[in-house]
């Protein structure tokens, strides 16, 4: 079935204005990947608090005695989930499924989703942000590293797209 989605240029303009609104009100841009690092920290902190505190990276999220989840980006990500849910709901797109191309099985697709998630989670921490927090937000401020990062995302994806052709086409 062919889905009809909104015009990408129009969406781009609106997204740019949302980003501008975020800069104007908060002095910072959008983002989400740090939320998952915070969820990870919370989990590790529950299971092995000493280990989390001793770790050079987890401990950065544990400063100040607050829960790592009491953070701006965590609330933004929750909002994004609700916004996505609302949009999918009003156009009848909520459907339990495993999205994939016609020539790939469910279990392979899920393994690839897991692998892609692990790579993305790792890479987003290494680069201090993901496509929204680093590429979109930084590029809008003309940050040099963010432009390089965005270019590298496309290079990495185009260079390996051939190997995942069966997953999508």
């Amino acid at each position, binding site marked *: 079935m062919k889905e009809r989605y909104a015009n990408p240029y129009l969406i781009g303009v609106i997204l*740019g204005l949302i980003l*501008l609104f975020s800069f104007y009100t908060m002095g910072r841009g959008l983002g989400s990947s740090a939320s998952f690092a915070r969820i990870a920290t919370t989990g590790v902190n529950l299971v092995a608090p000493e280990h989390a505190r001793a770790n050079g990276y987890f401990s950065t999220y544990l400063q100040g005695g607050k829960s790592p989840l009491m953070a701006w980006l965590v609330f*933004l990500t929750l909002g994004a989930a609700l916004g996505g849910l609302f949009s999918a709901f009003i156009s009848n797109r909520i459907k339990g499924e495993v999205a994939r191309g016609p020539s790939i099985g469910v279990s392979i697709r899920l393994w690839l989703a897991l692998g892609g998630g692990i790579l993305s989670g790792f*890479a987003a921490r290494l680069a201090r942000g993901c496509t929204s927090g680093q590429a979109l937000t930084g590029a809008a401020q003309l*940050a*040099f590293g963010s432009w390089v990062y965005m270019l*590298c995302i496309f290079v990495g994806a185009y260079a*390996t797209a051939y190997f995942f052709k069966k997953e999508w086409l």
Partner: protein
Amino acid sequence: MGPLYKFGWFDFAYSLQLAGLIGFMFGFVLERAGFGNPRKLTAIFYLKDFAVLKVMFTAIVVCILGLLYFSVFGWIDLERVYLLPTFIWPQIAGGLVLGIGFVMGGYCPTTSVVATASGKLDGLIFIIGMIVGSVFFAEVYPLVERFYTSGDMGAIRLTDVFGINSGIITFLICLVAVGAYRLVEKIEQKFGDKDTLPKDSPKIKRAAAGLLILLGLILAIVNPDRTIATPAVSEVKPEKQVEAIQKPAATSETPDSTGFKIVDDEGC
């Protein structure tokens, strides 16, 4: 003058509510664009549908123009907007790996949230993967710490690297954007599925492209960096303090009156 939070207009508790609202709009427009669907997202890598590039590039250009015009009008103090620092080597490596993760998993972090919200199991698995990846990063952090902090160039902009003012850079980016839109639409026509591609009136597109270039050109002539160079901090401070009182500071996480403390700035 913005950013409002940095001038103490509201407290941390309110900023979290605002985060929810901004996030809601963010997730909403991503889903509208079809970015909860990994086949739509990855179609760009098979030259079939460049919606990802159009949305991202347009958002970036609109926001660059917005920030610089706001700055020229004195509505925002760009010095107080958190600028992501450049660590060039981890950013190059991270970008390449994230790109592979994108085409393998079908999502980038935020779009996987939107996909999960619309019922996609693979989106949820991708999120679990990201949490695992984050744990893995933290566990190997002692090993990668040196690389993670390498290539530190500070918070630099394209303007510093190329040595030209942000107005001219913006003008060039506007030109590149219009050129890129033309190019990818040609490619889409060749490889894409003509039924699903948006059909815009050429007249509107030409007008929009003209407007974009005009806005960039005005900035190039105005040179926004000149206005940034003279921040009027002391002048704005009193009026903001008056505004800060209107919100009862039940939770005093941040000092409201001096309110410049950056609570929690982090990349992404």
